[in-house]
């Protein structure tokens, strides 16, 4: 395997050919936030939270770190102002759709909400007003983790996507027998599956 040298946040990194920027960053302890990424699944590149800035031959580009392969001489910035602006906007757009724990935890870093202590035992989430409100929270960020897990790992293909654009949804395939492994429940960050396992949309 060829060794590739690149620079992440000012640090030199030695990576192997075929690695993604996300993996290379992980190897030196640089954390890039992700939502639709999972180590057992093929990179998807849909949430765009892992967007990073790269400089190659003096041209700057914004790419998804989970999909972009390492290249020699690449300069990567995972925490620049431009990148953080994008991440903040993504969370601002997703929170009204799925105001749940995992997303809120991520959103505190961008000042979109805070975890406030009400009393000794009780704390709660306080969210700043939504600039882009949703009609009703769907508790689904359309990250596709459940669909992809059911397709690639358990290979049951019981849940899938239907529709396109803003009509895109996750749905239960009619007539399919689910093996009730409940992996989709544990992998879901948007909250769709919390206590709502059976109430998926039936076609």
């Amino acid at each position, binding site marked *: 395997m060829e060794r590739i040298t690149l620079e992440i946040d000012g640090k030199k990194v030695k990576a192997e050919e075929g690695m993604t920027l996300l993996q290379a960053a992980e190897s030196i302890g640089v954390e890039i936030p992700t939502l639709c990424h999972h180590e057992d699944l093929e990179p998807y590149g849909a949430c765009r939270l892992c967007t990073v800035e790269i400089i190659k031959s003096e041209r700057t580009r914004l790419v998804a770190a989970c999909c972009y392969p390492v290249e020699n001489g690449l300069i990567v910035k995972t925490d620049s102002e431009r990148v953080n602006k994008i991440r903040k906007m993504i969370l601002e757009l997703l929170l009204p759709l799925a105001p749940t724990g995992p997303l809120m935890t991520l959103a505190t870093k961008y000042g979109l909400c805070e975890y406030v202590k009400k009393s000794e035992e009780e704390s709660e989430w306080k969210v700043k007003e939504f600039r882009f409100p949703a009609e009703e929270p769907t508790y689904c960020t359309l990250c596709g983790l459940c*669909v992809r897990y*059911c*397709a690639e790992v358990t290979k049951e*293909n*019981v*849940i*899938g*996507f*239907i*529709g*396109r654009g803003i009509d895109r949804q996750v*749905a239960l*395939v*009619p*007539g*399919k027998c689910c093996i009730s492994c409940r992996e989709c429940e544990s992998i879901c960050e948007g909250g769709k599956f919390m206590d709502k396992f059976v109430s998926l949309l039936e*076609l």
Partner: protein
Amino acid sequence: MKREKTKSHFIGLRVTKKQKEVLSKIQEKSDLSKTDILLKGLEILDEYYSLGLDRPPLSYELKELEEEAMHHSEELKRIRRREESIREMVQELRDIDEVIDKHQGDKSALIQILLEIQSRNHWLPKPALMWVSERLNVPMSQILHIATFYKAFSLKPRGKHLVRVCLGTACHVRGGQRILEEAERVLGIKAGETTPDHRFTLESVNCLGCCALGPVMIVDDEYHGKLAPSKIGKILSNHT
């Protein structure tokens, strides 16, 4: 037991005049074959005679016979309908097999196969999709995603006539939106829907390539160009 003189005929068999009346009435009301009626009818009459009863009062006879005949007729109809639908289903599956075999069962031809099924049936029935999933060994989730992703496919039966209004940029600039709204108003449905009587399905399209004719609406294969909203009602009423 006295039997009346059998002076009438019902499909060549000698029956009494009254019996013929009853049998003919039953035949009128059901679609059983004459033989069926006769057999059933005579069977019932025989029952009465075997019970030692003189021929039953006519009205009673008629009513009971009618009910029996109707019941049998409904049964037969139900059986025939099931037969018919099974035959249709088998034929549909055979049709789908034909399409799949034409593409040598190649998974990558999935969209092409679905397009052919859609154009034959004017929609994609769920059993058809399940059969395609079986034969091509492609998960149903993928087929459903494709069927709901593309505009060409419909998971619900479409109307007899497909009305498409062009909303391409050139037509938009010439007032295409008004044409669509008028069509929606006239048909009482929104774009993408089918009228309750299944006569029309209304859709919007992006560029039919007849920009010189804009704004354009096609009903099945008939093009109507340089439209004003006032003309739409008349065009649609011409299609039954």
